[in-house]
């Protein structure tokens, strides 16, 4: 009995290590693979206007989509868009469903452990929004209130850092669900990216919602699989060129109605 169990464990270990070896021989080839297969797979979101949303022809449009097409053009390969939700952006890279994530992705140490980031390409900030008739001066005032947030988004982590113990944080699957919960009155406040919240407030004036507290000023970066330094250098080069040529500035003006501002490298 013990012997057969050991044998089985051994066989399993052997199979596992074979699998690991097979998947391990795969470093630094992303750029070559893309040029060879002639397709650049980019993960974008369709629930965060004006960065990524669905246009009247039901195709994804927005600043992030323009950025994806710009990189595709510079690399000389067509772009294939992979639609993801906030929480599946990083898994999309890890599982190689996408070569790049261009989806209002902010940089933080937790994420840097598992993926790499390009230089920043567009401005973004996250904040808490709520009704005008509830006064909120600081995060301490949120105690005992319910705050909706998109699970796994930057707002979720930032809110976790600054929110007092009494805050009832409700996590939803994507921005649309978070907004639906707020507009239905299921949560009193929402923590959202500024542009998403801006759209929500324009479409729902009856909420009389307003900006309350700044969570984080966090420009967007492009996510790249860990260890693909050659690919990352190429993407950074494209971003730097586009910044110099004014293409990024034009994109920010077109979609955000504001200047690019000072972006970190």
């Amino acid at each position, binding site marked *: 009995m013990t012997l057969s169990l050991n044998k089985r464990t051994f066989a399993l270990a052997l199979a596992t290590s074979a699998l690991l070896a097979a998947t391990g021989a795969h470093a630094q080839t992303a750029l070559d693979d893309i040029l060879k297969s002639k397709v650049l797979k980019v993960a974008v979101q369709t629930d965060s206007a004006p960065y990524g949303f669905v246009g009247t022809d039901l195709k994804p449009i927005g600043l992030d989509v323009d950025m994806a097409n710009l990189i595709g053009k510079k690399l000389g390969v067509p772009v294939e868009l992979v639609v993801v939700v906030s929480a599946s952006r990083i898994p999309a890279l890890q599982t190689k469903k996408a070569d790049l994530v261009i989806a209002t992705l902010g940089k933080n140490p937790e994420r840097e452990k598992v993926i790499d980031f390009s230089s920043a390409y567009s401005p973004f900030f996250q904040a808490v929004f709520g009704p005008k008739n509830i006064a909120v001066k600081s995060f301490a005032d949120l105690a005992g209130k319910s705050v909706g947030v998109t699970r796994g988004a930057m707002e979720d982590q930032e809110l976790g850092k600054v929110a007092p113990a009494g805050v009832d944080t409700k996590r939803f699957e994507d921005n649309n669900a978070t907004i639906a*919960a707020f507009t239905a009155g299921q949560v009193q406040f929402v923590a959202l990216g500024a542009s998403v919240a801006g759209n929500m407030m324009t479409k729902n004036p009856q909420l009389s919602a307003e900006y309350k507290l700044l969570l984080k000023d966090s420009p967007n970066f492009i996510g790249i699989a860990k*260890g693909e330094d050659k690919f990352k250098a190429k993407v950074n080069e494209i971003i730097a060129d586009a910044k110099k040529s004014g293409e990024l500035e034009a994109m920010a003006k077109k979609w955000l109605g504001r200047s690019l501002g000072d972006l970190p490298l």
Partner: protein
Amino acid sequence: MRIQLDFGAVLAEWPLLLTGIGWTLALTAAAVLVGTALGIACAWVRARGFGAELAPRWLQVVVGGYVELIRNTPFIVQLFFIFFGLPAAGFKLSAETASFIAMVINLGAYATEIIRAGLEATPKGQIEAAVSLALTRLQTFTRVVLPPALQKIWPSLVSQIVIVMLGSSVCGQISTQELSYAADLIQSNNFRSFEAFIVVGVLYLLLSFAVRHLLNWAGATFLFGRR
């Protein structure tokens, strides 16, 4: 990229997993108790030979509509309707209450049809025997008809209950902190999605086995006795 499994990072979040198991079981338990009771009541209304001849016409229409509506729409739509839709009509429910109600009405509809099949399979002679012994209608139903009916359909009802329990994984979408919600939260914190879902998958498997055995035992012990 090398695939390295790190279950430690997921298991370190055991309080979240434990809360998740707690909510999944609590929702299931509530759904079983209330949903089965609802199912029995509705089955009485719909079953020929029992309530179908006695219940008023409007009640039959209401129950029939309920059963068809729930059995022909997806659970997540029912859940979202209750959580996001009802507040517009003035009913504001917490995520937990909405999940509970959605599971009860969902199980109730399926249980109705399962239990009705059991009721209609009762031999006519048994009812005639009960009537000739001067049992009232209620006594006939609760003592003569229902126990053997439940015994016949118990395995299918238990299966449906397990399906509803697994279906509760959808409730995490509206921020109920059940087991899948825990898995989603863990993987969005440490990006160990593969490990998180393996762990939660195994937990669901164990929960299903446990619930199935518990219900098989409870049915035989409290409802209809062993054969």
